[in-house]
């Protein structure tokens, strides 16, 4: 075991899979010689050569399209979209082609490909380096959307994503890249793509969250326990689509109070889907309104820090929402 941050864990996961399986390769903007804009792929070009670590033009539709072609021809490509904000030129390739390839070919071809992309607001990120795009993809059967938060989960889930026979969109919250560190196993292991994780047991309310918000929610949960004696159960979906409804519902039924926190724009969000599942399936266990906390319907996290802080739900807002629900 060694302490790793999220970047390091993802790097290790990639490198280990490339070592153990010659069909695994990476492609994307600046992933080769530059080692990636966040240094995730540093050293891979040297170790595996330009054939398996390909620098591509600034053309996301090409990156995804090439990965589809490679995947149906025996490779297991890991495509990197440098920032999730730039994924939209590849949207058609992901949603119309990759996700439906297996269905369209009546099971003749599948696309065992992974698309990694950093998402989420960072100071100064503003319009093109801040977006949370997950909702745009969580309405596409055939695609898996995963968003691990902690390094050891990320490494294990990246391995599962690479080994999965169908396309997986792998979201990494870039503000947690260096923020969260933990012991990450060095031996080969994988984390399944269909299991949510209960990070903290509680009895008073359930908070479901992922990414930076999960990290903040866990801190607030500890604070509430100490200051108010409120015990919050914190659940991370880890895979956003399809959801592990069972784990989420078990927790909702246990506490009867339910809050989803994410930094995506609230309207039409994954939070809405999670809330709907709970409202329907856990109705008779609910002791309060199903609540959501997210970003307002504003086009982007602003460049100015005060405006960004307004946009991204912070610890204060999360605490207020938790307390409101606890006291309801």
């Amino acid at each position: 075991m060694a302490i790793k941050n999220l970047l390091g864990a993802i790097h290790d996961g990639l490198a280990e899979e490339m070592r153990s399986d010659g069909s695994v390769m990476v492609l994307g903007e600046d992933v080769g010689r530059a080692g990636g804009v966040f240094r995730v792929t540093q050293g891979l070009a040297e170790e595996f050569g330009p054939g398996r670590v390909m620098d591509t033009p600034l053309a996301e539709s090409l990156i995804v399209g090439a990965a589809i072609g490679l995947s149906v021809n025996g490779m297991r490509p890991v495509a990197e979209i440098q920032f999730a904000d730039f994924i939209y030129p590849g949207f058609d390739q992901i949603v119309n082609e990759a996700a439906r390839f297996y269905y369209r070919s009546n099971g003749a071809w599948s696309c065992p490909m992974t698309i990694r992309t950093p998402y989420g607001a960072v100071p100064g990120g503003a319009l093109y380096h801040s977006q949370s795009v997950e909702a745009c993809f969580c309405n596409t059967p055939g695609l898996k959307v995963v968003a691990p938060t902690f390094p050891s989960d990320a490494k294990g889930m990246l391995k599962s994503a690479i080994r999965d026979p169908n396309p997986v969109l792998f979201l990494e919250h870039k503000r947690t890249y260096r923020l969260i560190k933990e012991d990450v196993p060095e031996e080969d292991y994988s984390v399944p793509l269909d299991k949510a994780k209960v990070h903290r047991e509680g009895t008073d309310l359930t908070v479901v969250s992922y990414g930076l918000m999960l990290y903040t929610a866990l801190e607030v949960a500890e604070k509430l326990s100490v200051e108010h004696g409120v015990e919050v159960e914190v659940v991370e979906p880890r895979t956003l689509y399809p959801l592990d409804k069972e784990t989420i519902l078990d927790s909702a039924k246990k506490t009867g109070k339910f809050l989803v926190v994410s930094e995506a724009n609230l309207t039409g969000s994954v939070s809405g889907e999670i809330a709907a599942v709970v409202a329907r399936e856990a109705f008779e266990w609910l002791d309060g309104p199903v609540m959501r906390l997210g970003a307002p319907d504003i086009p982007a996290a602003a460049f100015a820090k005060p405006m960004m802080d307004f946009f991204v739900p912070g610890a204060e807002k999360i605490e207020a929402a938790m307390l409101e629900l606890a006291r309801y």
Partner: protein
Amino acid sequence: MATPVNMPQLGESVTEGTIARWLKAEGDEVEKDEPLCEIDTDKVSSELPSPFAGKIEKLLIPEGDTVDVGTEIALVAVAGAGKETAAEEEPPAEEAPAREDATAEAPTEEFPSAGTEAQPVAEDGEKQHAVAGTRSGGDGLVEIESAETLRLTRSSPVVRRLAGEHDVDIAEISGTGIGGRVTKKDIEAYIEEREEEYETPGLKEEREAFAPPEPEAMPVREPEREPERERVPVYEGDRVMDLTSIRRAIADRISRSKREAPHAWSMVEVDVTGLVALRERVKEEFESREGIRLTYLPFIVKAVVEGLKEHPVLNSVWDGDRILLRKRINVGVAVDLKDALIVPVIPDADELNILGLARKIDDLVRRSRSGQLGPDDVTGGTFTVNNPGALGSVVSLPIINHPQAAILSAEAIVKRPVVVNDAIAIRSVMNLEVSFDHRVLDGGVALRFLNAVKKRLEGYGPESEIW
């Protein structure tokens, strides 16, 4: 034009009233303010003065029936134009026979006041049956509920499910959620407590059964056995007493207090030798001067009031997620009626001296016994003084007068040998107890309060002046 008379709201938080007796019959003329009927509520009995002059056209509610506040109870043909104002000074309408369509014109479905329930009254005077209880649901009938009931029963899906599964009336539970909402934890605690309650008396009953008790033969009560209200067997010669509204009110309130407020209890002994001597010295003169007997109660109430000033937390109310400290000190005094207990209130007792308290108590006791208390005489209490000593009790464990935080009991004054300065002396001693809501306060402050009362009562000497 027939105008409806509605069941009045006889005091704050009173939601229903019982027609004890009609004092007028159909066809009788009635003057404005002339008594129309006697109404029992859970707090008080009183006469309902007619709101206007006219001729009784129909008595809609039979004697003995209990209806919600605001329900129409009678139709009175008012003389003149039939407007409300006509009632003011119009002479009785001798020449105004009731018209055939009079009742149809009467505004039978109006809401008499905000937040209260108005059941439309059938024109033939047939008794209205409220649509099945709040729990039944399902039959598609909509019951118009009062705002208070709605607040108390507004509940989440899980609370409704648990209420259904355990046959609980949500309105009986005091909620700790926002706006008094009953939360999942509230109902779970209630169910647990209730099951414990049913457990114990059940075993007791079985122990008292005819068979000699055999521990291993004791039937184990099934936990899911629901409290279907089983009737106690009636044997030959037994008499069945229907509950009077005051008996039912006492039962409800006392049960509620015991159920909701965790009672704790403490007692001190008070040496009132000086007070006894004082009273002996002045009582005859006092009675001849003031026309009332001087009892110990005014002294106790005065000491209590001063104790409450020192320890205001005893003059408070538990309110779910907060405690309300009352500014006014309105002391209720328990009065024993032959078959009931009533607690008239001395408002602003802290503004009265011994004489003022004596007069007020004498007035309240006399009016309690003659049934002349009004609704305002029995509401608004913030603390209660119980005086079982008047009946010879030396120890009692009073139940708090819901929703107050505490109650004080003053016991009989008895002569006892006590040790004074290492010698045995005969002293007049009284036990003082307080039962308090342990959610609101703890034993420390309860005893400091008791000692504050004790100190004042022990401070009287034979020569003290009383005012």
